[in-house]
């Protein structure tokens, strides 16, 4: 029986092989060598626009050094890296690669030169590691990254606010009617505050705030374990319309969804940020975080033409909301979001020379 089975398999395979070979012979376009795929071929470009002399002979050009991006593992980090990668690959024609990393390994890879560009260095959270690396000269700042961002220790859903109009400022958490809203089994009779990701600077800051506001007896900080867990917990609460008190930051997909799907969110009032208050107990709101693009110093020698581009990069709130909004609504992959962004928004074209922008659009279409 076993042998008969092989006869059939052999026979089928032989038939398929003959059939394919026959088709191959009939097809005049078939060539024995594999065709390059996925990236637009130079011949295809020439056929479409033979007069365009600006086009590089080969894009990406394999003789150029490969530029490696740190793909930071959160939405804005991934989107920025994907857009920049498309521009570097299809505009400047460098071969590119991206390595998915979280904050700390991402920084380490940049310092070691395993990656060349990291689109988001959050200074407040990484201040020590970043200043050490700057002093050693292994990395450099290449200008501003995200500009419009906020983080807040005491965020609640809008529906909680609507149901409790008297809950206005952080001080109101000391009232039983309000802190008991956020009580759970593990919060020891206090309000449960979902804190920042363990080990990050914001975790310490939030704990310090709880103490200096005198909220120790009213608020219990809960460690969410990771960014993904924090987001999932908040989403579940919003979906169930439960009262929840949490630390978060924006612009992010979650806060975008909170705004569009769950009726919005409310940040409990705190005194405005000032350096004095920050140095004495942090009894005020967070200031704007400084977010930079970080590069490995080698980039200046291997791809000097990218430096002005990165310095001109300006991923402001408009750009960020456009990209993240499109992602949230279409449920698209990060790469599709980058393509959409390049094809449907205008501002990025001012970050690069005209011919590079034309190159990007042309290669995307091809």
């Amino acid at each position, binding site marked *: 029986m076993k042998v008969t089975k092989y006869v059939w398999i052999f026979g089928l395979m032989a038939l398929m*092989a003959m059939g394919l070979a026959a088709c191959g012979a009939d097809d005049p376009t078939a060539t024995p060598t594999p065709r390059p795929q996925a990236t637009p071929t130079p011949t295809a470009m020439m056929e479409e626009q033979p007069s365009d002399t600006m086009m590089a002979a080969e894009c990406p050009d394999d003789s150029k050094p490969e530029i490696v991006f740190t793909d930071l593992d959160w939405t804005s980090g991934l989107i920025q890296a994907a857009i920049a990668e498309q521009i570097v690959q299809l505009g400047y024609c460098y071969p590119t690669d991206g390595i998915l990393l979280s904050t700390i390994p991402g920084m380490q890879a940049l310092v070691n030169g395993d990656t060349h560009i990291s689109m988001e260095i959050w200074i407040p959270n990484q201040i020590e590691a970043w200043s050490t690396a700057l002093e050693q000269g292994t990395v450099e700042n290449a200008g501003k990254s995200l500009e419009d961002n906020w983080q807040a220790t005491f965020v609640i859903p809008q529906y909680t606010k609507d149901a409790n109009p008297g809950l206005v400022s952080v001080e109101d958490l000391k009232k039983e009617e309000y802190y008991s809203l956020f009580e759970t089994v593990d919060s020891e009779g206090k309000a449960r505050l979902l804190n920042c990701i*363990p080990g990050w600077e914001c975790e310490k800051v939030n704990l310090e705030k709880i103490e200096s506001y005198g909220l120790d007896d009213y608020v219990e900080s809960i460690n969410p374990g990771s960014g993904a867990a924090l987001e999932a917990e908040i989403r579940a609460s919003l979906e169930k319309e439960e009262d929840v008190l949490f630390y978060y930051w924006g612009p992010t997909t979650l806060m975008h969804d909170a705004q569009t799907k769950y009726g919005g969110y409310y940040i409990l009032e705190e005194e405005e940020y000032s350096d004095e208050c920050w140095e004495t107990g942090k009894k005020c709101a967070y200031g704007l975080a400084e977010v930079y693009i970080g590069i490995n110093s080698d980039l200046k020698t291997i791809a000097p033409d990218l430096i002005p581009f990165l310095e001109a990069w300006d991923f402001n709130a408009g750009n960020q909301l456009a990209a993240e909004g499109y992602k949230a609504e279409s449920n698209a992959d990060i790469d599709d979001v980058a393509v959409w962004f390049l094809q449907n928004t205008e501002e990025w074209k001012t970050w690069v020379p005209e011919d590079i922008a034309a190159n990007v659009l042309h290669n995307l279409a091809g």
Partner: protein
Amino acid sequence: MALASPPIGNGMGRGVRDWFAGLSDRYIYGGGAIIFLMLAWIGASLWGSNLEFPERFTFGKALAVRVDDLIFWITVNLAFILDPISDGILRFLVELEDFFQWVPWPVTIIAATAIAFKVAGRRMGIFALVSLLLLGGFGLWESAMETMALIAVAVLISIGLALPIGILAARSDLVDALIRPILDAMQTMPAFVYLVPAIMFLGIGNPAAVLATVIYAVPPAIRLTNLGIRQVSPGTVEAARAFGTTSRQLLVKVQIPMAIPTIMAGINQTTMMALAMVVIASLVGAGGLGDDVNRALSQFQPGNALNGGIGIVILAIIIDRVTQAAAKERQEALMGSRN
């Protein structure tokens, strides 16, 4: 298959079969490989390399959206079942943790040393004493007790699930065949995949961590309970039947007692796997040694991470040796009574 095996006496069919029968598998596989390469070469020259699967036949994304919707639906609509489960686990865990923290550490160390000494011998007793003092010296005592509470709850729930399921699987081949692929999936599915739904369903913190730990750790206990009962020799079962046992008596008085060493080996493995999960559990907010490791890594402190890691290893070795020695003792008692 009737088609493929021509009737005897058909000269053609016999000829082909004889021709192949003379070939060893080596030639058949070798020939297959050559044909594979030929097909690949022809296909690649026809369609080019990196041939993509036609997009109109892909359904992964559409399916994923449905799964997302389903998870949200369960979160909202089954909250009335899930929330009490979550609160129950949490209450139990908080109590147990408070108890572990309440017992003064010298008492805990003396008790653990005494158990290790009695069950696993003098050397293990000394090891337990020294390593637990070391744990305190690392400043990990509180974390270790938190981890112990988490492991204890996860293992208790695992045993509670594994015994009935294992017994069912031992008594019915159908159940056995049904649960086998499920157990395989539970052991190989990356934990990150079910961590996020676990949070949505049970909330951040220990309940989700317990769920994730149980999913990963329960299969060996089920498998070995099943195996242990099936391994009880047919002779013994027949003898018991000859004395007129009911099938319930057979299970409770013969099969389970004789399977206990194997079941304990399963529980031992379950405990080890639960300990292996503590760092992943910390990603959903479980405290303890896993959180120490997670926190150290997020601040680039490899030294601190190593301390936490050593703490987990110490707990694992003590629990492993003690439960193994207990299983062995039981095994020897059984053998003794049989002889």
